[in-house]
């Protein structure tokens, strides 16, 4: 029990460490992978991808916060570029999905097995 209390660091002896952030990121990554694999709706798969990207950004930020020093801002910089790429990816993916919906009338990935009608 004292080990758990030390890990949670609620007694205020020290700030929460690297492990706590990595734990949150690992669980979030597992949730995202579950959504990617289990969902049959293409937008659900996109939601899973967003969860995975957020877990990766959290990992970058945690390693930056506990590993870098001084004026080094590589962690937030990685995060900014990943958010930019995620925005680009979401826009193009939504355009593709809307096209699929116009052509096939569904976005269930099991029903879309051909490249064209």
């Amino acid at each position: 029990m004292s080990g758990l209390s030390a890990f949670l660091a609620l007694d205020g002896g020290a700030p929460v460490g690297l492990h706590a952030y990595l734990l949150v990121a690992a669980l979030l990554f597992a949730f995202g992978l579950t959504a990617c694999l289990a969902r049959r709706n293409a937008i659900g798969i996109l939601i899973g991808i967003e969860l995975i990207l957020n877990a990766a950004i959290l990992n970058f930020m945690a390693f930056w916060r506990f590993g870098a020093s001084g004026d080094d801002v590589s962690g937030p910089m990685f995060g900014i570029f990943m958010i930019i790429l995620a925005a680009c990816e979401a826009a193009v993916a939504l355009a593709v999905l809307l096209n699929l919906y116009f052509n096939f009338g569904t976005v269930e990935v099991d029903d879309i097995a051909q490249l064209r009608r």
Partner: protein
Amino acid sequence: MPETLAAAPWQGANLSFWLIAALVLISGGFAAFTRNIVQAAYSLFFTLVGMAGLYILLGSPFLAITQVIIYVGGILVLLMFGVLLTNRPLERARRGQGRLYVVGAVVAALALAMVLLRIVFTTEWMTGSAAVEPVGGTRPIGRLLLTEYLLPFELAGMLLLLGLIGAAYLVRRRET
């Protein structure tokens, strides 16, 4: 208890970290496991806002604001549009969900989570020995974006332009 507060300056930050982590994990798990895709999109909102809170705790308010503006204000709204434009409840009720897919996905994710957690808790991470904490303020980020990271910055701009044009091209009305 002023002496306790003076002795424990991190207590509030630690408590808020675990509260935000619980919010992120619960809403993220709900987004991953709920049947209803609309509820999943709404649940993702709390995950993304909670992640912004974690970035503030990690010392980069700039990334937190970027997260709220772009992820919550842009990507999530796009996802909502996609959900509402393509949602067909009848389809989902008719087909149901493939049970086998769900079992396989959960087994794979559990295995991955166990491997990741083992790596996290058994590796000797090389954390910084420097007493100076890194500060992710706006000033160093802005300066480095226009000096050291200039090429990736411009490439990201080009990529956004190409993505915009490509998306507009894909969803245009074809005249036949």
